[in-house]
């Protein structure tokens, strides 16, 4: 049942974002793990479309925040405004109060604003004037970063990048799909007309079910040996934290659930390891996601899969 609706969801999004089934799968897995997604890519490859389509397909609210250098935390969270009629401060919700939030070019804003967003992501609630407001469920932030533009940007510090469950790239579609995109209808029109295939409530239920996916002991060891290997690699300055391990476990469970299983198999862990752990590695040389992925691949090649 869950498997069916999830593959339907995948199909629906695939019909809009052509030729990127794996990225779409990662987005869905992130959603099922209650995580947040960081997409690193140049503009115009469909990051916004992906976020919007996902929101639409699960019948959830969607907000897009374009980050700029002069933004304030209140521009995201919201602020209290004095209401002269009731003689009270009324809280006006910011754009963060949505199910799917697209934080576009997150590295363009100041660290202060970034941290406000990341705190909301982590706590799943915001506090203003000693009052706490819970964010809607499901809640997922899809943040984007432009890797090529460095001028006037504030790169996310490692501790904050760590909050994202996954870090993926979209990349250009293959020639055939690009052709379809070019001659086809405008994306936005399709999305506007799109019927949801699943509801937000169902997603929340699935998120709970993901937690009960079982992980056999030897697979826990396998996961631990992957994490330990990142800490002992000579090319890596700082390996994966325990939180990174937790995230990998979660993602593996969600991946198993996505495949319609109630148990994790080795491939779930091996598949998720690179997108979940890659951006958490602090390398000795350079700081490129591509290089980190290469090292992750090397590490995974070395660790024996339990049989």
């Amino acid at each position, binding site marked *: 049942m869950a498997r069916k609706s999830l593959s339907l969801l995948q199909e629906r999004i695939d019909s809009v974002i052509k030729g990127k089934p794996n990225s779409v799968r990662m987005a869905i897995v992130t959603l099922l793990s209650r995580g947040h997604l960081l997409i690193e890519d140049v503009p115009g490859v469909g990051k916004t479309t992906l976020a919007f389509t996902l929101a639409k397909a699960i019948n959830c609210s969607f907000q897009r925040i374009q980050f700029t250098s002069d933004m304030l935390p209140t521009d995201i969270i919201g602020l209290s405004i004095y209401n002269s009629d009731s003689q009270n401060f009324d809280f006006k919700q910011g754009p963060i109060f949505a199910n799917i939030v697209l934080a576009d070019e997150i590295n363009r804003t100041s660290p202060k604003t970034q941290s406000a967003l990341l705190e909301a992501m982590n706590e799943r609630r915001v506090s203003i004037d000693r009052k706490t407001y819970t964010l809607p469920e499901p809640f997922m932030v899809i943040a984007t970063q432009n890797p090529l533009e460095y001028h006037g940007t504030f790169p996310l510090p490692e501790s904050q990048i760590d909050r994202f469950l996954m870090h993926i790239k979209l990349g250009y579609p293959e020639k055939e799909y690009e052709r379809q995109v070019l001659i086809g209808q405008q994306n936005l029109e399709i999305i506007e007309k799109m019927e949801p295939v699943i509801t937000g409530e169902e997603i929340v239920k699935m998120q709970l079910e993901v937690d009960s996916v*079982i992980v*056999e002991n030897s*697979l826990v060891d396998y996961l631990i*040996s992957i994490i*330990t*290997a990142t800490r*002992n690699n000579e090319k890596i300055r700082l390996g994966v934290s325990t939180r990174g391990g937790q995230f990998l476990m979660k993602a593996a469970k969600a991946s198993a659930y996505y495949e319609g*299983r*109630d*148990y*994790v*198999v*080795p*491939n779930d862990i*091996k598949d998720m390891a690179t997108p979940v752990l890659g951006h958490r590695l602090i390398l000795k040389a350079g700081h490129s996601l591509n290089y980190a992925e290469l090292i992750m691949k090397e590490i*995974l*090649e*070395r*660790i*024996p*899969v339990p*049989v």
Partner: protein
Amino acid sequence: MPRIYKALTIILAFTGCIGLITTGELNPLMIVAGTAIIPGYIRFWKDKPALTKLAVGSLSISVLLVFILDSLLISGEIFIAVAHLTIIFQALKSYDIKEPWDHLQVYFMSLLQLIIASELTQSGIFGIIFIVFLITLVAAMVISHFTKEGTLKKIKLKAPVTAITVITLIVTVVFFIAAPRLQGGFGGKHYKKSVKTSGFSNNVSFGSFGEIKLNHEIIMRAEMSKNLPFSIYWRGVMLNYFDGISWQNTFKKRYRIYRDKDIFELVKIPEEKILTQKIFVEPLDSDVIFGIGTISRIEMETRVLFADYGGGVYTHDKSYKRLNYVIYSTLEEQTATEQTYDYLNLPSELIRTADFARRITRGINKTIDKAVKIENYLKANYRYSLKTPPPPEDMNPIEDFLFNTKQGYCEHYATSMALMLRALGIPSRIVTGFLNGEKNEYGNYIIVRQSDAHSWVEAVIDGKWKRFDPTPPAPPTTTPSAYSLFLDSLRMKWYSYVVSFSSADQKQLFSNFSLRFSKLKAIPKITGLNIRKLLVIILITAGAAFFFFVIKRVKRTKYSFITQEYLKFKKFLKRKGAKINQSSTPSDILKEASRLGIGHNVSEFISLYQIVRFGKKELNNEEKNKYKNLILY
């Protein structure tokens, strides 16, 4: 794992190895192989992952094979072979430390190494190493205990660890001082030759002086067909000519002993009078063959043996190898057939000695009584001592002994008596060899040490060579511990059952079985040529087969039915050229199988495997059968 715990394990591993290496008994090649321990522990310290099971397993097997070869051929000595084995296993272990159990194994191996080392050495460095080992072991045990309890972080370890370590140290030192043990160690082979030591030699000379140190090195082990009461004289070499300082054997001519197969026959002696001795001689700077009484024949795996006219038997050159032979001899006195004037020479300067001999034996008529008188006189009036001060100038050392110091050791007594007998016209000679030894109850054999070396007198009385021993009994030396005797008995068993397993034994074994048919009589002859090699090959094959079987067995029982099937399929795919390795997941294998177009229902099989293996679901027999032939390849 706390850093300190790791450090202690490393120290323990190294103390064991260093302890063994400092004995200087190991094969340099094995030590070189053992240095693999250094990179091993560097890896371990840096938290590098352990080697794979396959690598460790195959290395272990090859080490065991080397061990078999080593114990039979290379060092030919189980003790040294075990020492080599522990050195290499210790190195191997450094690549395979994962669980607390592995640490314990390292401790155990170090302990074993130090026990072996204690058998091989007597140097002071070993004592220091052993104390380091004890202290480290205690610290490791205490820390591992607290680690297990999970209280390592909460309490301060310094005080208890220091206290326990100090107490252990004190107890050890007290024990070390108080425990009775041999003066010169046990079985040590590298005794410093700078001081004059007791021991067997082809010559007897009075050219050097000073105190003789007793050397307790084991020189010979012997099993006898009959249990003889003590006063066993192991005859070595006979000396007939004394030049005033030293004795020599002037029978330069040695003759080859007639050989029939492995039997060398000297004289025929009726079988009922034969005493058999199976003798194992440690490497010795001498070519002499030892035996009790008069040797009739010798059974030995060698090409030639020589004999001289004094009843001495020799190998063709000094062998620095371990020898084993069987002596068939008799305790009956030998008839003096040679020309006896060879045994009457007396240096002219020894006039006082001659006078002395006549004075003592004045009034005695019978030759035998004269000899007994001299023997008893020396025994009663002189003192046994290993200390001999240099004689005054112009004084013969023998006369100095007889008339001034009146103390000396066997060589003085034997020489004096022989010379005194010669002065009386009784032909006499000196025989060197060993006296008694000690009985090892554990193996019912006799251990003979360098310190048992002895010399005595043989004189012609009524046409027969009669033995006299004028040396008074030496003060008793410390007896070896039961423990070392027990260990030695193990060594003896190894020698008699494995090392000396000769072609004759082999033939006997063959003939004991079914080879009574006349047609098959040729077989033992053919196989007899290379029995040792054959034995080694059989052992190695059996060992390899055994380990192969064990490993298969372990593998089988470790994995469930479905996992075994999965592994088989994986192997099959690999043979077909699939790019899979240890890091391939079942999904990767499925992908490769479909890429290569191998197998049917692979996808069903893989998902089934994953359900059983990772979904923790049991298969019933029906399902098992159903899936048994799922993959048709």
